């Protein structure tokens, strides 16, 4: 072979991709991201169900044991039970809808995006749900004649929960955005 021929062999590679996407590794990465979003969604759902059930139980018990007959506390407890029903229903719908997705790269990625989108929406709704809950608690304090003290404590704690909720949801939004960018890249490369 003369050097010109060696150069031709070298130049020929410019028309071929030297490297290809390792689909198995990509699939593993997507599956791991999917597991991550599913885990966070599960934690949020169970957290909301347990916290609301516990808080509603405490409110009803307090009302019953102190014979306060505070109607706002019952409304608050009912609202919390409604929240539990809402979260449980949506969780059940989310779990059953997971059968729609196949186990391919695109199926797993779509599933991960779907769960991340669901989680962002759930977190937003639950965040705004704090406003009526806070308002009812203030009315409850008012009826009990402890407006200033109770209202101050409730306002501070609910405002704090609202702020933490908004901050926390930014992580969910970012996670969803990463998955959407990955999907756009895959579609662009297809």
């Amino acid at each position: 072979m003369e050097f010109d021929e060696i150069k031709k062999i070298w130049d020929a590679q410019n028309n071929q991709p030297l490297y290809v996407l390792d689909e198995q590794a990509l699939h593993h990465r997507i599956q791991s991201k999917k597991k991550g979003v599913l885990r966070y969604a599960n934690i949020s759902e169970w957290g909301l169900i347990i916290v609301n059930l516990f808080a509603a139980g405490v409110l009803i018990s307090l009302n019953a044991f102190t014979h306060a007959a505070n109607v706002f506390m019952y409304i608050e407890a009912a609202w919390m039970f409604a929240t539990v029903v809402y979260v449980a229903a949506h969780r059940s719908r989310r779990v059953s809808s997971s059968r729609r997705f196949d186990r391919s790269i695109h199926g797993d990625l779509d599933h991960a995006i779907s769960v991340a989108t669901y989680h962002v929406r759930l977190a937003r709704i639950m965040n705004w749900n704090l406003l009526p809950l806070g308002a009812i608690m203030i009315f409850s304090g008012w009826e009990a004649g402890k407006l200033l003290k109770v209202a101050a404590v409730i306002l501070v704690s609910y405002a704090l929960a609202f702020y933490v909720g908004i901050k926390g949801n930014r992580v969910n939004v970012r996670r969803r955005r990463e998955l959407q960018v990955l999907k756009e890249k895959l579609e662009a490369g297809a």
Partner: protein
Amino acid sequence: MTEKEQLEILEEWLMLHKGLIFKVIRAYTPADHDDLFQEIIIQVWHSIPTFRQEASVTTWLYRIALNTAIKWTKKEKKHAGAGPLDNIQHLLQENKTAMDERLAWLYDEIYKLDEIDRSVTLLLLEGYSYKEMSAMLGISESNVGVKINRIKKLLIAKSKKYDNHGIR
């Protein structure tokens, strides 16, 4: 330069010139492609604010990729036998189906050369002038000329052996 601008430049360079980086990686390491790729990308990233457009982007990238590969090879030799630092699973793998046997042979022969000769060979095959090679590698033009003569003779001799053994 903001970090966002830097990232946009990196993505554009990678999109247009990643083939160049892969050639350097393939010539410098038969196995740890991901590690060297990562190292080169980090160096390219750091170099972006200092790029003054006095050289073309490809020349700039070749300079960084080759220098990084040379340093990396020396470091690897020093730490030969040590285990991998991590088990990060990367997403790129060699396209073995597309690799021409003769090209694989050529890469093997380049890999057998010392670090500087590998760089000279890559730049020679890419069509760079003596002057550009000298500037990129920090060796004199006459030294580049001597090396090129030697490398050409060596590759031609090896190719004859390769042809005679009927591997093609």
